[in-house]
Every structure is written in structure tokens, then in C-alpha cells.
């Protein structure tokens, strides 16, 4: 597969024209139709965040469509970028075109990736950076595949909500890493639920309960900031806590089934077992009662404690049946079980996204993932404070977790939230 195969594609010239217009921030509609009109135009990935997920996403995109190359990479750390480049190049060297001058390291690496001629940005850094990177990518006129969650706090959520329409106005696609929405079994199951297979939904449950996750032992040469970044799961300003970082997947499925988001959260949680300083300051368990319109409730659990019952699941209770969504099973009058072949959703999400770009009808999944992220944040806020938190309170929260400026150096670990004492801001 030669690079020329793509640069010589017939509509390359048109594509340059439209992306240039977008880069300049010009806004005229409809701008992008024709952008991938040939169906084979080169997708040029710029990867921001070169960890295991970002690396996996590039390989998923390679597998998901023809005519995909990697042209620029950025990460806070040189070693992460190097290992990612090596992993991707192992079996896909022909699709990698990332010379030294398109490898960017540091907190401003994303700016350089966005200034390259990449036209398909993958955002896979810790989620705390997401709103900043997403806003910059949309401003630069790039199509974006963004990992979940989309933000970690109210200000970030508001920033991203504003980008939903901006992206549409610019003809830019935004796909989100909520891959269950591209997973055959989930799609088939929820189609039936939405067609009334269990009647009206009256209650729901969902969980992401598992054991401990990875952590990286602190090295003597690491500053506080580097240590926190390399252990980003355990710091709310970076991950949003595990209810946001991980459980957002299950919450998203319930929002999808409900067709809306909850209006309030009544939550509790704590830090019972994973208490050492190596685990940052996040909780190890949450239990949230989410209230949807019409007094329909979702019981959500998120736990990361070793040796306990595990469950990563979503269940819906209808007035005419029940649905165990993760098992693709419906019981009741219209009992049904998915018996088809499931797909590879992490690949499919790129297949679907790239097809939408080439068809000139870019997907925009930003609103859904932002609502689901805010749902999780609302639950976290309720558990942290011990108070009920409404959708509007969470959305309008002024608590900005990202430090105003970030350099490698000292940084205190935020205090562990104490329900009843921690205040909602």
C-alpha cells in the first residue's frame, strides 16, 4: 500500500480546499459535502494521547477502513509516544508516516498535532484534557474521534456542549468511544426495547463492579505532576473518578434506552479498602439512585475493590418484560435472545465514522456522550457531598478541576472527599 495511492486520489484537491476553509474558521453551510466524496480519500490520523487505548484506536481505525494512515502523534511523555509508534509500526509500517518532526512531546503537543495536515484526530489522553483538546480540534477544522468520558467537571461539560453545534456548523464529524452504540448485540437488543418489547421502562440497574486496576510505582525522578499523570486513574482532575472514567459506559446504555438523561442523583460512596497514597484520592465505591423524568429510577453501582462480586452490566425493567442488555436477552411476553454474530465494536466505530465522513454526512455523537458523562459527574458530585444533585446544578457547577496552568513540578494531592462536609460548588 503506497502513500501515493491516497495522495493521488481524484478528490484530494477538493478535500484540501474544504479542510483549508475549515482551518481558517470560515463558516458556510453546507461546507463539507464532497469532502470524502470518492469514498477512498485518505484518512490521515493525528493521535493525541499515545497510551494503550490511543494505540489501540489507531490500529482499530486501520482495521476499520481502507485508506487510513497515521501522520502525527503527540503525548506528554516521549517514552509513551515511542512505545506507541513502535507497537503500531510492528505490523502496519506502510500506514505509518510519522517522521521525527511530526512527533510532539509535552503539554502543548496537541497544538502541533492539530497544526499538521492530519484530518482525523484521535483524542485518547486522560479525560481531564478532553474539553481543551476537543475545542482546539474543532477550531482547527478537524474531524475527531474522541474517547470517553468527554470531561470531568461542569465547566468542561459546558465547553463541550457548546461544541456540538459548532462542529455541525463546520461540517465536522465527532465520534465518541462509547463503543456499545456500535456493538451489534447492543444495537439489536435496544432496537427491540425501543420498539416496545418490554413495554414502558419503569426502572433500571447498571453496574461496573470490578477489582483493582493498574497503577505505576512512583519513580524517584518523577515530579508530583508526572506521577499523577502516569497514574491518572486515581486523580479526579484527570479521570473524573472511576464512576466517570469507567461506569459512564453503562450509564450511557441506560440513557440510550431511556432516550433521555436523569434529572437528579442521590448518591453515596467512599474510600474503604483502596486507601493508600498510591491510589490518589478517589473513591473505591459508588452507589447512585438516578431519577429520570416521570419518577423512573436507575440504580447504579461502581466499585473497584478486589475480591468482591463482579458485574459489568445493564438491565431494564419494563411494565411488560425485562431486558438484560449486556446479555442481549429479553424476557416476558416478547422474550428474545440475540443469537447472531457479534462484531468488534472498537473497529466498527471507526468503520461507521469513516464511512459517514466519506459519504459527506459526518456523524456527530458528541451530545450523547456529553450527557452520559454529565450523568456520571452528577452521581459523583452527589456521592462526594452526600447531597442530592440536580442536572442543572451539575451542569452549572463552577468547580474547575484542571489547574489553570500545568507544568511538571510539585502538586498536592487533593483531599479525599468527605460526604456531609465536602460542599457542592
Amino acid at each position, binding site marked *: 500500500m503506497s502513500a501515493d495511492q491516497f495522495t493521488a486520489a481524484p478528490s484530494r484537491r477538493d478535500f484540501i480546499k474544504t479542510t483549508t476553509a475549515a482551518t481558517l474558521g470560515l463558516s458556510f453551510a453546507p461546507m463539507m459535502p464532497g469532502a470524502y466524496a470518492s469514498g477512498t480519500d485518505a484518512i490521515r490520523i493525528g493521535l493525541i494521547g499515545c497510551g494503550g487505548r490511543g494505540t489501540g484506536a489507531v490500529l482499530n481505525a486501520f482495521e476499520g477502513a481502507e485508506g487510513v494512515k497515521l501522520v502525527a502523534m503527540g503525548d506528554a511523555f516521549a517514552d509513551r509516544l515511542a512505545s506507541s509508534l513502535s507497537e*503500531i509500526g510492528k505490523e502496519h509500517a506502510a500506514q505509518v508516516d510519522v517522521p521525527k518532526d511530526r512527533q510532539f512531546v509535552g503539554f502543548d503537543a496537541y497544538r502541533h498535532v492539530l497544526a499538521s495536515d492530519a484530518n482525523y484526530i484521535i483524542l485518547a489522553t486522560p479525560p481531564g484534557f478532553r474539553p481543551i483538546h476537543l475545542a482546539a480540534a474543532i477550531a482547527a477544522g478537524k474531524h475527531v474521534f474522541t474517547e470517553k468520558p468527554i470531561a470531568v467537571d461542569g465547566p468542561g461539560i459546558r465547553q463541550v456542549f457548546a461544541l456540538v453545534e459548532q462542529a455541525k456548523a463546520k461540517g465536522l464529524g465527532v465520534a465518541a468511544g462509547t463503543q456499545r452504540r456500535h456493538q451489534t448485540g447492543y444495537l439489536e437488543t435496544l432496537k427491540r426495547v425501543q420498539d416496545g418489547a418490554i413495554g414502558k421502562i419503569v426502572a433500571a440497574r447498571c453496574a461496573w463492579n470490578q477489582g*483493582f486496576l493498574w497503577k505505576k510505582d512512583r519513580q524517584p525522578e518523577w515530579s508530583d505532576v508526572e506521577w499523577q499523570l502516569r497514574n491518572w486513574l486515581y486523580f479526579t482532575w484527570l479521570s473524573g473518578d472511576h464512576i466517570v472514567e469507567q461506569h459512564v459506559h453503562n450509564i450511557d446504555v441506560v440513557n440510550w434506552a431511556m432516550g433521555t438523561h436523569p434529572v437528579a442523583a442521590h448518591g453515596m460512596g467512599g474510600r474503604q479498602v483502596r486507601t493508600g497514597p498510591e491510589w490518589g484520592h478517589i473513591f473505591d465505591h459508588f452507589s447512585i439512585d438516578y431519577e429520570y423524568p416521570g419518577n423512573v429510577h436507575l440504580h447504579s453501582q461502581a466499585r473497584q475493590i478486589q475480591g468482591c462480586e463482579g458485574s459489568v452490566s445493564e438491565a431494564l425493567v419494563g411494565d411488560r418484560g425485562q431486558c438484560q442488555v449486556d*446479555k442481549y436477552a429479553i424476557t416476558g411476553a416478547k422474550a428474545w435472545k440475540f443469537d447472531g454474530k*457479534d462484531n468488534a465494536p472498537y473497529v466498527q466505530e471507526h468503520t461507521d465514522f469513516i464511512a459517514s465522513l466519506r459519504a459527506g454526512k459526518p456523524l456527530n455523537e458528541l451530545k450523547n456522550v456529553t450527557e452520559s458523562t454529565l450523568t456520571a459527574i452528577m452521581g459523583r458530585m452527589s456521592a462526594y457531598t452526600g447531597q442530592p444533585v440536580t442536572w442543572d446544578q451539575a451542569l452549572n457547577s463552577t468547580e474547575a478541576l484542571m489547574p489553570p496552568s500545568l507544568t511538571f513540578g510539585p502538586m498536592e494531592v487533593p483531599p479525599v472527599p468527605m460526604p456531609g462536609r465536602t460542599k457542592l460548588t
Partner: protein
Amino acid sequence: MVKRGTVLAACGIAALAAGQPPSTYTETIPGTRVSFEMVAIPSGHFTMGSPATEKGRTASEGPPHDVELRAFWIGSTEVTWDEYDLFAFSMDVERPSSAQPRPAPPSGADAVTRPTPPYGDESFGYGKGKQPAINMTWHAAMEYCRWLSAKTGKTYRLPTEAEWEYAARAGTTTAYSFGGDARALGDYAWTRENSGERPHPVATKKPNAWGLFDMHGNVSEWILDQYDAGYYRTVQPGTVGPVLLPGNHRFPHVSRGGSWDDEASLARSAARRGSAPDWSRRDPQSPKSIWWHTNALFAGFRVVRAVEEQDNLKGFRSTITRDSSQ
């Protein structure tokens, strides 16, 4: 069952030195209350593979060929989560209560690499305890055996494909160890027909004639051998301890016995299956985990221990690393 030969006395085990055949024993994992039973399997020979007339059979099961095996022990059950958790989550070296001092790791076992934690629930909601451990990679199962060996001072490993089939047949030549009629399978096995689409606690069905549970069904069991559909055509009849040693590729390895998620024909004594990259289809990371699959909820294993190890398996271990290709 045909029993041939006697176990050599040079194996350094007291009971055997006296010319006694090996006997069944219970192993308690040191420092824990977790135990499992190892059933003695005498040396012997059998016909490996299936005849062309066997219902559900595939070409990879032929030609049938005569195989000789030395004596060994094999777990009476599949490895349970009670056992596997000790290894996978270092529950043998860490105590859940921080009030207790952390004991020093046992010598030897400390050098064994441990799985990285999965991003998700490794039990898939099926529960733990006496449930068979599932969804681990072949590499992880191999490393479990190294860990168990270091803990116990005895050399445990995965069964070779020949050992597994010999033990599963328990002297029979029929499709199943209880005969050729799959209608009786439900008395012996959890398969798609009766499992309710989930694995079940080990040893809750009838054992075979040699006292081994769940050789048919429940979880499909990792085998030490690399999978090659044409391998049987290359084995000389009468070979002692045939084994196809794997290299450092992640796939394919043999998995045997069928599972709760499979139809009856995959639970036959001769049925073969090779692992494949789509067993990790939903792993979002790259490199993908070398410890956990994401789509092999049907995969587990049991351990064996040679009475006298064959030369080509002495010290054999997985060479798979994060850099290994598929």
C-alpha cells in the same frame, strides 16, 4: 483402559521408588486453605483422534493414531477461581486487612510474573469460588502452572493434547467417555443444551470412569500444544508423549472438551479447537493483554503433573511477551 509398563523407579518419589504406581493425592496450596485433587493416571496407550464415522467429527481429528503415554497426575476438576485468584490477584502475598503485617512472599513464587489487572470484571457476573476460572490466556494458564510449581515444589503444567484426550477417554473409544450417544451428555456435562448460558461450579455433574469431572463441557480447557489442524498426519504411530511445542506467537493453542457455550459435538473426547485473535476482540488496548482475553468466557484449564517428565517438556515455559505477534 489398557495399562502398560511400570513407572520407572528413577523419578525420586518415595512411593514410586518402591515400585508402587502413583496414587491420587490432595494438594493444598501452601499458606492457604485452598486445595485440589490430583488423580493418578497410569502409563498406557490409546488411539488418539476419532474415526471418520464419528458424528460431528472434523478432519483435524484424523487420522486416528496409537499413542503411548507415561504416568501422570491430572486435576480432578478445572482450576477454580478460588485457586486462580491467589495467583492472578496476588492474594497469596497480600492480605486484605491492612492491620495485619504483610508476610514475606514465599521464595521462588515471587519470581513468577503475575497478571496485570483486567479492565473489567473477569468473572463476567458468573460468580467466583468454585466456579471455573475463565477468560485467561494460554500464557496466563502456563504462568499459573509455574506459580503453582514454585509454591508447592512440585512441577505442574498444562496437559499435552495426548494426555488430555487419554484422560478424557478413560479407556473408552466412543465419542464420549460414557458412550456414543449424546443424549446422556447432560448427566456428565454442562453444554449449550443445559447450561442456561453460563458456566457452573466444578464437579456438579458425573465424573468419567477415572474420576475426572467436566472433561466434557463446562469450560473448554487449555492444552500445552500449539494447534495445527494437520498435526495428526505427522505423528508416527506409537510415539511416546507426542506434543507440538508452541513458539512465541499468541495463537493458536489447543483448547479441549467444549464448554457451556458449545454444542455437544465440541464436547466429544476427540474434538479439537484452536484459539484465535477474536478471543480478544473487545480488548481496547494495544498491545492487547497477554493475560486476559475479552471474549473467551468459555475458556479455562486444569493442571497435570508428570510422574517422570519427558525430556522435551523439562523446563518448558511460555515465551510470549507483550511484543509477541498474533
